[in-house]
């Protein structure tokens, strides 16, 4: 009956080996995930290479776009962290752009009939990637926090101006909230990408199933089709928003580290 059967909604997250590689006993095979990391990063590098090849007073379109991105992240870093944030600007910029492009490239539709290895893959829909990025951010926060404030960095967990008795309650809460940061950061991005792509796939699957069923049901296929279009638009917004949220939260945590002693 289901002649137009679609692949299951989980297939798009399946990691497929393309080239077997290993360093020692560690498996570092080139997979579809690795391929899309390379595609995204390659595209970013190509774009910025074009944008900066002839840095002109009167910029062309590519340079203007790069400058808009630069100013956007630069303002974000300055407004959130302050002047100390300047040294984190390259990190936040790389982070924002890497996530943004990974999210957006994940929205490229897969051409029908391609082998699984060539399917579009959203690298940020995997917990390993988002958790690694959030752990990197938190590691930088902790290292920078202790380097900048010394032991006073721990004042982050015991804000001044509170009755001493409150510390019994406050310190554990602050500690848990701090420790949950990398998890929430990682899971927010992963879950958004994961859920968005599942919903897209489900709506698309409904369209295929309903059209394949024939008769009145074929006409009904219009509803999930409209839904799929709406979710696609929403996913583009989410793709940008999640990259932005990751970047701004990174800035806020770095700001905490920079100003921990002032608390």
């Amino acid at each position, binding site marked *: 009956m289901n002649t137009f*059967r*679609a*692949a*299951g*909604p*989980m*297939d798009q*997250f399946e*990691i497929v080996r393309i080239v077997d*590689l290993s*360093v020692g006993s*560690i*498996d*570092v095979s080139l*997979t579809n*995930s*690795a391929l899309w*990391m*390379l595609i995204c*990063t390659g595209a*970013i*590098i190509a774009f*910025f*290479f074009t*944008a*900066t090849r002839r*840095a*002109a*007073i009167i910029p062309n379109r590519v*340079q203007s776009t*790069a*400058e808009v991105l*630069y*100013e956007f992240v*630069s303002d974000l870093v300055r407004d959130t962290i302050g002047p100390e944030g300047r040294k984190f*600007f*390259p*990190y936040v*910029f*790389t982070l924002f*752009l*890497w996530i943004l492009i990974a999210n957006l490239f994940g929205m490229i539709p897969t051409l029908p009939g391609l082998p699984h290895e060539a399917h579009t893959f959203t*690298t940020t*829909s*995997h*917990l*390993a*990637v988002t958790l*690694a*990025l959030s752990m990197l951010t938190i590691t930088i926060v902790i290292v920078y926090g202790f380097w900048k404030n010394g032991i006073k960095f721990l004042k982050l967990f015991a804000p001044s101006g509170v009755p001493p008795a409150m510390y019994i309650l406050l310190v554990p809460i602050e500690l848990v909230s701090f420790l949950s940061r990398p998890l929430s950061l990682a899971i927010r991005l*992963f879950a958004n990408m994961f859920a968005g792509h599942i919903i897209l796939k*489900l709506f698309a*699957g*409904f369209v295929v*199933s*309903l059209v394949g*069923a024939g008769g*009145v*049901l074929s006409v*009904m296929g219009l509803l999930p089709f409209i839904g799929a279009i709406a979710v696609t638009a929403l996913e583009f917004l989410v793709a940008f928003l999640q990259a932005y949220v990751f970047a701004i939260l990174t800035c806020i945590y770095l700001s905490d580290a920079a100003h921990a002693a002032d608390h």
Partner: protein
Amino acid sequence: MSLSAVIVAAAAAAEDAAAESGGLPQLDMSTWPSQLFWLAVTFGILYWLMAGRFLPAIGGAIEERRGRIADDLDQASEFRGQAEAAEDAYNQSLADAKAKAQGIAADTRAEVDAEIAEMQAETDAKLQGQLEAAEARIGEMKEEATAKVEEAAADATRAIVERLIDEAPTDDAVARAMTNIAR
């Protein structure tokens, strides 16, 4: 009817999905080392290029543009200042020239007036002299004419008296008679 059909189709698709997914691919730890490795490689290269090359280039271009615009504005205001100074100088020299021209005009007028007055005085004096000379000559001629008329009258009187009394009167008598008549 149509709504229930959608629900049936949705349920079917969801069942398909559930049947095919053998656990989340994200939680398959065997794929993590490869993902982390390639993440480190791509993210590391991107960070290295951004920090070392792309961002300084873009920031430099933006700074250079800002500097250029500020320079241009400075230069523009400098040029405006120069233009204003030039205008002031022009107005000043124009006023000077006008004042000078007026001075020259006034001097010239005074000179010309003086010359005219002098010439007029000269001419007046000359004319006065000619007038006086002419008047003197006229007076002379008048006296001469009067004398000649009296002489003629006396001659005539004498001739008439001689004819009447055949005796020539003396000059004194004639003169007396003429004086009486004239009176």
